[in-house]
């Protein structure tokens, strides 16, 4: 392990942190604009041209706001919970290849922090730990809405991890590797090689589960405003609340990357065109998160559990079995 490798890794980490923190802020801007346009509104307009500087204004507001720690909360846990959400979201990005490898100034760069050979397992596992942000934040808050939100987040995360795992099992059986780069190279031949054509059921299941894992609108029960105020975020203010937000948006970006890489061919053969395609795919999945938020209603928690255990899980298991039988013969 030489010094150059360590420096390179640290640079990569810093770049990913900066890019995706900024993207999280930009994501809030896009979300507000897209939702506004779909609801015949204009969205933020007054700060900067077309309201672009609203992100900066929000950032300044969040950073300078008083950090309120309510009286009856369990203080250390309350303070650390938002950090867990943001940290796990960014930790998950360590095994995601964001871009094909390229050569700059005679130096080959692999835009992945750690190419471990169980990449997808690591990404899903660390995203699963993101559960502890809402869970601990909600339980430490001494607030009934927060507690309900914590219970819901625990239930949703545990249930939908089963769906993500089982739905991914079938494509992984075909690829025979857990590394995201191997999965990408498996589909390098072109559009007809994309796994989505051979595993459409797994693709839809994983996509549905992605909504639950990121807590986006059809499954936005963890912080459903009209039922439980802001859920686990009710007692938070300032940048601690902002960290929850950054974590949520970073998670949306990373899960979009994962879907695009596993099912839609990723960056293909690694040319520039493939890389731009990857960005477009990720942009589509991110846009879809916003799109559904404008179009679809939230469902009840019991319906969510029903959907998970009585519909999605049997389908996922059948999909795995069918894939196995087809692969054997």
């Amino acid at each position, binding site marked *: 392990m030489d010094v150059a490798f360590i420096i390179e890794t640290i640079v990569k980490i810093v770049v990913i942190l900066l890019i995706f923190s900024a993207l999280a802020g930009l994501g809030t801007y896009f979300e507000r604009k897209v939702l506004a346009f779909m609801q015949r509104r204009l969205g933020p307009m007054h700060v900067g041209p077309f309201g672009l500087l609203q992100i900066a204004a929000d950032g300044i507001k969040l950073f300078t706001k008083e950090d309120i720690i309510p009286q009856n909360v*369990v203080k250390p846990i309350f303070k650390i919970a938002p950090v867990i959400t943001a940290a796990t979201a960014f930790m998950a990005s360590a095994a995601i290849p964001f871009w094909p490898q390229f050569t700059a100034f005679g130096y080959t760069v692999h835009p992945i922090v750690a190419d471990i050979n169980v990449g997808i397992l690591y990404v899903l596992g660390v995203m699963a730990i993101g559960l502890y942000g809402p869970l601990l934040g909600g339980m*430490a808050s001494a607030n009934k809405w927060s507690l309900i939100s914590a219970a819901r987040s625990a239930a949703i995360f545990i249930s939908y991890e089963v769906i993500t795992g089982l739905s991914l099992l079938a494509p992984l059986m075909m690829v025979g590797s857990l590394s995201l780069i191997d999965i990408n190279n498996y589909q390098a031949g072109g559009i007809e090689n994309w796994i989505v054509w051979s595993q459409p059921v797994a693709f839809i299941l994983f996509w549905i589960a992605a909504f639950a894992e990121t807590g986006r609108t059809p499954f936005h029960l963890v912080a459903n405003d009209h039922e439980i105020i802001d859920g686990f975020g009710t007692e938070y203010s300032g940048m601690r609340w902002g960290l929850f937000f950054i974590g949520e948006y970073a998670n949306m970006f990373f899960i979009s990357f994962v879907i695009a890489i596993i099912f839609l061919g990723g960056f293909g053969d690694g040319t520039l065109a493939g890389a731009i395609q990857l960005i477009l795919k990720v942009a589509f999945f991110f846009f879809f998160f916003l799109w559904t938020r404008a179009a679809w209603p939230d469902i009840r928690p019991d319906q969510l559990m029903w959907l998970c255990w009585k519909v999605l899980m049997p389908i996922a298991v059948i999909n795995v079995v069918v894939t196995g039988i087809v692969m054997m013969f």
Partner: protein
Amino acid sequence: MFEAIAFYLFAALTVVMFTITVVTSQALYAITAMAAGMIFISAFFFILGADFLGAIQIIVYTGAVMALYAFGMMFFDTTRKVVEKRVNPQIVFVLGVLAAILVVAIFVAPIVSNNIHALYPVQEGVGNSQAIGMVLFTKYLVPFELAAVMLLVAMIAGIVLAGKKMDKSLTLMTEEDIAKAHPQHESHHSAGGHH
């Protein structure tokens, strides 16, 4: 060198975390420290090059098992401290120390006698998960299948125990049906009426 630094760092963190789990009287500290300890344990797997086991450690223990503990935690008032009733602290202390010594002895014995060596050395060109699959489905096939059957039995038993009256909905039943299905309710009310 980096591996040594990482090992001692995570070893210290793990020990500290599990100490907090045992010592603290605040339930929320205990569960947080335990979850953190489970994650730090996965670091050892990564240091040893067992990526698959490390990821599984995170998913299974931190993601699933600890979240189930968290469900149990919902019954506590986490803002209060748990008051423990210690009848005889000396016995607890002595037994605890004895148990610790026993565990250390069990784990140290093979190291002291130089009896420990890798049965399945790392094979070149074979991924981590493949290596585990080979071992699981050849040498340890019977224990693996037995564990699977046991889990299946446990799952079915859990569903049967929890799902006894799941097809009945009190909101959809009439008063008479409820009274018929729950006769103890009726007797309870009439008993209350006599007082």
